[in-house]
């Protein structure tokens, strides 16, 4: 069997979709509803993992691997790292709004995004369940090779622009973190760090 083709197995795929979809939705609800930030971050990992499973079910193996390595393995680890270092805990009052009208705006944006995605889904003819709707994958190559070729030929400009953007953000972060000290300035005091869980 050539690489990249897949015998269509509707029933197992449906089961996979239902299970992974349930993990994604429950995880997403957990991110929003759980009061403890670390639990919310873990729910986010569950969501990302469910999305990775859905990618595998759609034959997008590389995207699945990248999803787990980059998002679950690096970005959420960074979230957790920050939560641990800053010691955010349940004692923080969730009723205080640091940004005015943040909650209603978030609600509007959330409903708006949901509506937009539903509209685009129905305009495109609804969910068919078939994979690779826009373009059939080339059966002679792995999707890694195809993705790589596209990135470095057709989308080379976007790729390089992203690289420059990331470099700029790193330089910016370094600039913000390391300011040259003013002569005679007092040594910055250590912040008190609250570790672990509030009992």
């Amino acid at each position, binding site marked *: 069997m050539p690489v990249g083709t897949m015998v269509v197995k509707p029933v197992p795929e449906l089961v996979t979709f239902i299970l992974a979809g349930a993990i994604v939705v429950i995880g997403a609800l957990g991110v929003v509803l759980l009061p403890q930030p*670390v639990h919310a971050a873990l729910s986010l990992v569950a969501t990302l993992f469910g999305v990775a499973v859905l990618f595998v079910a759609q034959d997008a193996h590389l995207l699945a691997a990248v999803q787990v390595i980059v998002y679950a393995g690096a970005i959420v*680890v960074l979230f957790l790292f920050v939560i*641990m270092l800053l010691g955010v805990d349940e004692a923080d009052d969730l009723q205080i709004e640091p940004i005015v009208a943040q909650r209603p705006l978030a609600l509007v944006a959330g409903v708006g995004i949901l509506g937009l995605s539903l509209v685009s889904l129905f305009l495109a003819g609804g969910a068919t369940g078939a994979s690779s709707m826009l373009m059939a994958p080339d059966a002679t190559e792995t999707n890694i090779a195809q993705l790589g070729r596209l990135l470095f030929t057709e989308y080379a400009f976007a790729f390089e622009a992203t690289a420059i953007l990331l470099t700029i953000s790193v330089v910016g972060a370094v600039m913000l973190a390391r300011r040259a*000290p003013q002569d005679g*300035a007092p040594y910055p005091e250590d912040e008190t760090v609250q570790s*672990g*869980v509030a*009992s």
Partner: protein
Amino acid sequence: MDPLYADGVGVAVVLITLLKVLVAFVFTLVATMFMVWFERKIIADMQHRIGPNRAGPWGILQTLADGTKLFFKEDLLPDKADRRVFRLAPVLAVVPAFLAFSVIPLGGNFTDGDGTVSIFGHRTFLQLADPPVGVLFFLAMSAIGVYGIMLAGWASGSKYPLLGSVRASAQIVSYEAALGLSVVAVLLVTRTLSTNGIVAAQSARFGVDWNLVATGVVPAVVFLIAGTAELNRPPFDLVEAEQELVGGFNTEYSSIRFALFFLAEFMNTVTMSALIVTMFLGGPSGPVFGPEVMRSWFLPLFWFFLKLVLFLFTFVWFRGTLPRLRYDQLMDLGWKVLIPLSLGWLLLLATIRVAQNEGWSVPIAMAISLVVLGGAFGLLNLSLRAARRNREHEAEVYA
């Protein structure tokens, strides 16, 4: 892709797959048991001690005895622990450790065959899974394994475990970059991500075709160092530095939950060694002779285990010889040495590959890229020196 699944999936194929799952599971457990005993025995020899010698011949059953003991001990849950996460963390450490091993090819005749063996009339690879993303699957699993350590330290609600896990996450995330870059060097040479394909690409001649030679040794060395750091093994074991952190992230754990962390750690060591063998030393390939059963079963397995034990010994040797790094030395080594080195080497390999494809003169292309890399190294050194000057100036201002 595994030829087992080429003709559709029937009952026999499912049963063979289940058998492979079972064998892989038991194998990882037994290998871990062996590794624990091996490490204690070798380290004891290096320190002029006898080591375990009570349970079984040469104390080989000591791990089994310890495991049984841990299983029956009381499971403590600290008062301040976050109950759910505290219970989840050991599982998150051990499951990826099991899964990561599934992509390692253990045997099969790659030298003059296609790497398949025959089980009950079906041709199949002697590895549990051969996903198209191969090595990336291993990286993904080791990325998930970080959560076990991180969450264990945080959920204990105690300061030393928290310090241990903060160190662990910083260390693992830092060294993952160097690890990934040396993996890319291998992928560039073999042109495939599949572990099976990587072994097949280095099997024609024993030794000469290994990626160790084809990538020019440097990625293999970087991978070994970064891999040791990923495993939190000495000399990079700041995570559980006994003198500073009691026991590090697992201080508050006892009984079977502690045993799971212990298991995961040694299992990861075995998997990391197996991965180095697969990526740089041709996995199970080696000289084969004799009848079919020797050619595709016995000899490849023998070569694989020989190479595996070599690296297991190297890890124990590191532990017996090298003193632990300081935290700033650890970060300096990762960010200022290993990442620039593996990145530069990757560019060099890519240049050679392009020169071959385009029909340029390879020595001239190499010379030019070496000059460019030398310039980049000089710039890096300058910036490091400038940074140090700034730090010293800052210290003077605040003094």
